[in-house]
């Protein structure tokens, strides 16, 4: 009864950056830092929001716990196969949105 990756789209801006940050195994604060850096400071996630989001995504099997030695105080995460598919699908969706509309938006600006 696995959910289809399409059913997760569209992702919120924060969720998109969270999944993107898990191109590497990271702990919660590592994710917060990466999101801020990759989004050039546009998206800053508070710890309460992140903790809730991680719980939800884990329940949906988009991410999973990763085992990291030498640190038993933090929880580390990684993308599941489903999570990778969701991220890639959302990337394609956003890309085609921008590509399909780019010329038209430009024309509107010139008018």
């Amino acid at each position, binding site marked *: 009864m696995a959910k289809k990756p399409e059913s997760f789209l569209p992702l919120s801006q924060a969720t998109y950056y969270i999944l993107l940050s898990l191109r590497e195994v990271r702990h919660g604060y590592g994710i*917060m830092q990466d999101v801020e850096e990759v989004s050039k400071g546009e998206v*800053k996630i508070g710890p309460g*929001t992140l903790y809730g989001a991680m719980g939800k995504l884990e329940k949906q099997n988009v991410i999973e716990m990763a085992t990291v030695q030498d640190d038993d105080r933090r929880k580390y995460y990684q993308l599941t196969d489903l999570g990778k598919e969701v991220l890639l699908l959302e990337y394609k969706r956003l890309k085609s949105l921008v590509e399909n509309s780019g010329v038209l938006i430009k024309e509107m600006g010139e008018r």
Partner: protein
Amino acid sequence: MTVKKFKIWLAPDINKEEEWLTEMSQKGLHLQKYRFFTYYFEEDHSKSYTYQIDFRQGAKQDYFQLYKDAGWEYITEVIGVFHYFRTDSKRPDVQKIYSDSQSIQDSYIRMRGFYLLIFILFLVSQLGVFTSWGGWPRYIVIGVDVVLILVYLRLFYVLNKRINYYRKS
């Protein structure tokens, strides 16, 4: 020096409680401890903190570590589900633990589930009391129960208002 203040808040008013604690901190009174509706403040005019309260059941070590990593100092908890954090007011980055309205709404929904369960348990427990008391003590029980039920109804009314508010934004 420790300053004590007695105050009762309704659970969904944690945002007002946060503001109050932050204002107290600006005046040099920083929350240290909470016990039976009493806030214990430590006086220090050289500091100022922003306070935030998080509703979270079953918080484990990774939860507290995340807040610590993100620069939030753990102060105290109330009934095991309200967690009090603070950070230096002068910090330039995120000053709130929730950064979008969806997650604020989620926290109020969790809170509603928690209080609904308590309310149901309370009602069930009162059924037993009801049948075992007769005569005038029964009227005292009814009186107390009516007041408590009104408090609960008010609580759910405010919680629902909050949940709807964050749905729109």
